[in-house]
């Protein structure tokens, strides 16, 4: 048992150390002088450095255990990269958005960096202590972020709702861990696995209850039906860049942690658990899509559609075959498309004017006065719908593929039905973009250099969606197919 921190461990942990240092320096920077531009640049630079160091560490030390609590392997590196990319994109989107925010602006970035650090810790943990602290470090800044523009009652409501419900989910997680610990006497995943194998006691009630309670917490964070009730309100209430962060970085980190938990403790990943996951997947797909169909608010619509997307993703977990490749591709496609959709909302709502532009009819005729943005949004929506030639199609294809291979027919049925419903409401947004606008409620986009940067980023992400849809090979190379399990 390697208990203490080694120098290799520190090298493997460099991305997280850099991110944590960025948060500390960012805090000091704010304390020394509040300057929106320089503080943002500092934190953006720190995260970019973390991104580069993550790529470097991946090549230098592909797999390294960092004490008993963490392990930095290909899986961790891939998800860390995804989280860092999402965070950097959200900070870039937040900059023009926050320009005219009354009150303190800089804390938003600080909280985002802290949450990103939490997410990175989460995907590395192979121990309940690491899992818990990572999840909390991800969630606690989220409360502050969701309620960031607290002068608006919607935002405050979002923050409080997320705080309370998330605390309940955390309680479930802790109780589940306690039950598993009571049975096995181990806190590390590998230890639990060994203990469960040793006395062949996977199906005792204690273990089932513990696992189910932990699953409730994960399902809450991934907002799967029936634990999704917070999602639309929080997505709607939170400022648009924060919603983008919540929908991407936060959820990606949690799915990364869930995958590691289930695949380092295969004893728990049994037929029964997969039945439960299948039911969650089925009702999430149907429920999320049906509810999305009824929405006229774009943020709420995308919130429900994200519920459905994690339902699709769970099919890969249920099929339990090539699961890491399928989820990796799906997550990449989801990340890019979601960043573009929420990014567009943030972009057109910048600078912040008290409310976000989120009603669907405000987007009427967006194409006619900002064609590039509307095209990027169209591509992203088509990708979410799973139309061929976009990254979303490759993701759905893989999920479908593993589903067919393992003959989960009824689940595939829900996927098909869900996709059809999905196309209906995604196309509704797309057609809105292209009709000629009534002149009264048109969006007016102010032009400034800062807008151009986030705008250009959205267009680049839009192009990436197409590129990866047409030529997914580079993605397939970097997506890890195994989770290292060191006993």
């Amino acid at each position, binding site marked *: 048992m390697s208990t203490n921190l080694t120098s290799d461990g520190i090298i493997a942990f460099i991305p997280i150390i850099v991110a944590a240092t960025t948060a500390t320096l960012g805090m000091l920077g704010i304390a020394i002088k509040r300057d929106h531009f320089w503080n943002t640049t500092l934190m953006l630079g720190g995260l970019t450095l973390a991104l580069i160091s993550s790529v470097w560490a991946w090549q230098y030390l592909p797999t390294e255990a960092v004490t008993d*609590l963490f392990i930095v392997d290909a899986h961790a590196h891939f998800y860390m990269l995804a989280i860092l990319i999402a965070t950097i994109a959200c900070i870039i989107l937040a900059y023009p958005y926050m320009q005219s925010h009354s009150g303190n602006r800089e804390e938003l970035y600080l909280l985002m960096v*802290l949450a990103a650090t939490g997410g990175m810790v989460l995907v590395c943990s192979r121990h309940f202590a690491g899992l818990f602290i990572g999840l909390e470090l991800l969630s606690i800044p989220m409360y502050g972020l969701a309620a960031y523009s*607290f002068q608006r009652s919607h935002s405050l409501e979002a923050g409080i709702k997320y705080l309370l419900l998330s605390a309940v989910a955390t309680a479930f997680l802790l109780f589940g861990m306690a039950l598993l610990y009571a049975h096995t006497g181990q806190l590390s995943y590998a230890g639990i696995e060994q203990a469960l194998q040793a006395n062949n006691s996977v199906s005792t009630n204690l273990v089932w209850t513990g696992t189910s309670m932990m699953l409730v917490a994960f399902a809450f964070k991934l907002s799967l039906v029936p634990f999704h009730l917070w999602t639309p309100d929080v997505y709607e209430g939170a400022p648009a860049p924060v919603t983008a962060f919540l929908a991407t970085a936060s959820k990606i980190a949690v799915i990364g942690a869930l995958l590691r938990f289930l695949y380092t403790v295969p004893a728990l990943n049994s037929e029964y658990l997969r039945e439960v996951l299948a039911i969650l997947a089925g009702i999430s797909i149907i429920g999320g899509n049906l509810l999305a169909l009824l929405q006229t608010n774009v943020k709420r619509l995308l919130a429900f559609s994200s519920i459905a997307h994690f339902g699709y993703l769970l099919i890969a977990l249920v099929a339990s075959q090539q699961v890491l490749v399928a989820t990796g591709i799906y997550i990449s496609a989801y990340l890019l498309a979601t960043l573009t959709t929420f990014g567009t909302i943030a972009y057109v709502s910048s600078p912040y004017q008290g409310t976000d532009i989120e009603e669907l009819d405000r987007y009427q005729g967006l194409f006619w006065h900002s064609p590039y943005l509307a095209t990027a949004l169209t591509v992203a929506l088509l990708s979410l719908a799973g139309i061929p030639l976009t990254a979303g199609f490759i993701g759905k294809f893989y999920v479908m593929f593993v589903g067919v291979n393992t003959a989960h027919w009824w689940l595939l049925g829900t996927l098909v039905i869900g996709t059809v419903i999905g196309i209906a409401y995604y196309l509704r947004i797309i057609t809105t973009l292209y009709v000629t606008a009534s002149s009264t409620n048109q969006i007016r986009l102010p032009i400034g250099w800062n807008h151009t940067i986030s705008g250009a980023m959205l267009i680049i992400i839009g192009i990436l969606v197409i590129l990866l849809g047409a030529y997914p090979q580079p993605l397939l190379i970097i997506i890890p197919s195994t989770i290292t399990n060191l006993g």
Partner: protein
Amino acid sequence: MEFEFYLSSAITLFATIRTITNTNPVHGLLYLIVSLIAVAMIFFIIGAPFVGALEIVVYAGTIMVLFMFVIMMLNLGKDVVKQEQQWTAPDLWLGPGLLSLALLLQLLYAISTGGFHTAAGITNIDVHQVSTTLYGAYLLCVELASLLLLAALVAAYHLGRTTENE
């Protein structure tokens, strides 16, 4: 020691239920403090005196007393004296007081008989063991916990500000 365990657990449960069902916040907090002390008692019984002491010092001692002060100070007004009298009425502290007394008697009894319940395989985990684990294998967790506190502090600072502008 089994009887003591069940007694402490019963007090914990009862005090927690009273915390939730009480309509008076100060009353509820008093019960919450008792509940935390009873949990500390359970820690003492199962051989973790350090955690038990921390539970009392940190939760019952610091956080709860802070809560108490905040709630009492938030109500500064004309009828604050009247409220103060209501809050210090005997029927308010009698329940928590009795429960605490039961815990104290139990503690005194346990000290007088001495020793841990070693028969059930319980060993005494002392400060040395806790700290070597905390600053050895769990060192990163300690560091991350400080980041967690930073995040909570920044969020609380931001949300707690009353002025709109600098």
